[in-house]
């Protein structure tokens, strides 16, 4: 199943990936191969099987509403590319 060049560009945009022309071509081929493989799986009759979102047979795993200490702010900001006081500093979101 062929995926169009526009579809690759759209998906790349959604993931905020900047692709070169060659990368777009290469990914178009690779994604098409993956979708072909999925089509093989799609041929299996699953009409009697409920949709599965989880592969681990767990349910209702919840914790009580009890706060515990957070990390020190210095650790939180340790990997920040830039900071201002105790804030993360990032490029402008609004102009």
């Amino acid at each position, binding site marked *: 199943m062929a995926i169009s060049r526009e579809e690759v560009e759209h998906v790349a945009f959604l993931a905020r990936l900047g692709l070169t022309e060659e990368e777009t071509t290469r990914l178009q081929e690779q994604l098409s191969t993956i979708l072909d493989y999925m089509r093989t799986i799609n041929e299996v009759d699953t009409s009697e099987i409920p949709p599965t*979102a989880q592969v681990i047979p767990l349910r209702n*795993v919840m914790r009580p509403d009890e*706060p515990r200490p957070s990390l020190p*702010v210095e650790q*939180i900001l340790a990997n920040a590319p830039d900071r201002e006081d105790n804030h993360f500093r990032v490029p402008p979101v609004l102009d």
Partner: protein
Amino acid sequence: MSTSVYEPVIGLETHVQLETKSKMFCACSAAYAGAEPNTHVCPVCLGMPGVLPVINRRAVEFTLLSGLALNCEVPDASKFDRKNYPYPDLLKGYQISQYDLPFTVNGWLTIDVDGGPHRVGIIRAHLEEDTAKLIHKRENGASHTLMDANRSGVPLLEIVSAPDIRSPTAARAYVQKLRLIVQTLGVSTGNMEEGALRCDVNISIRPAGSEPLGVKVEIKNLNSARSVQRALEYEIDRQTRAIEGGQQVIQETRGWDEDRGVTVSQRTKEQAHDYRYFPEPDLPPVFLSPDWIDGLRQQMAELPDARRERYQREFGLSHYDAVQLTSALGVGTFFEQAVALYARPKVTANWIQGELFRVLRERDTDIQELPLTPEHLVELLVLIDDGTISQAIAKQVFDDVATSGRSPRTIVAERGLAQISDATELERMVAEAIAANPQAAADVRAGKAPALGFLTGQVMKATRGKANPAVVNQILKRLLDTA
């Protein structure tokens, strides 16, 4: 505004911060108000790779309670999904939300407006997580943005209404009712100024009586019930003018500018949302057993509508009075405590709706903030009943109690406000008033009724409202008839 020709179709999406102690998927404290930036943060709510979220059980229960209070159905099972979109306040690049199996669906609430009660459908009430806070800075002509992750991961209840609302006042009433319900349940402060309850509104207009919907505009950033109403009034007017001027309404997102009282196009590169929802692989599904749901139903506080009906039934109040007394948190409880001590519900209701609501409006506050207690109000009403003070003086005393929290009896004694019913003293004052106003006295003798009122007024003024007007009137008539 040609609202008679066009009919607005309005729906709301409301986000309610839940009052849990810890965040939705990690144990960081959710009480971030006033905290230093980035001090309520851990690898989970910072969106570090490889961390595992765990569901906060109380947040789920608060969501279920809210859905039940909104007459929603609860399915057998529910799950979380990832909603993917890139924005700097969303640290993981996705928000954990709910897509096709929300906790509660298909409910309604009632509002009392436009000849109400009207039912507004609730499409769904689901659970998700709040985002980080961005602060936009501009210095020396250059912009940058600061990010504080304290709010990231705070549990957020999203309530989506059906497009059943037909007027700005109804939209306002919807927000107020929703707020009252979450406050009554104790699941949120509902404080809109602090962002604990936030609204996005969808609005389109169509020729009255026609079926097809007009072009939908979304208004964001509404942080009070009043701005919901104002933004909608503005937007209906704007869309009506556009259509009547032969222009087209564009499907877009607009922001509300509170200061200028206008909606503004946000001119973002508008493109179809493509959230690529998929099931959250790190969170097992939640099965909602009937036992669990029944238990929650039993612990649910009495809701405003049930309380209103009870007031009509138990206290013989009108629908209007009962709606008023159940329209703000704490007012009903105040009323019931007063009525338990004073067996005249209608009189009590009138004082609450008149004086108490006036004071709350004037001081822009809530009943919980006033030092006035139900016992104070009852003491005041008894002072009126036994003739110690007049209605007019009682209103002054009420204001004093509402400020000082002192007992009405003490205030009346200290400020010398007791009504003067002593006939001798009053007779002296009436005689003075007659002597000072010979023309009015002559008019009364000539049978002109307004002059009698004038003289009574003079005596009331001289006693600063403390004279018993009925007694003054009697004395006046007697003195002038026999003069």
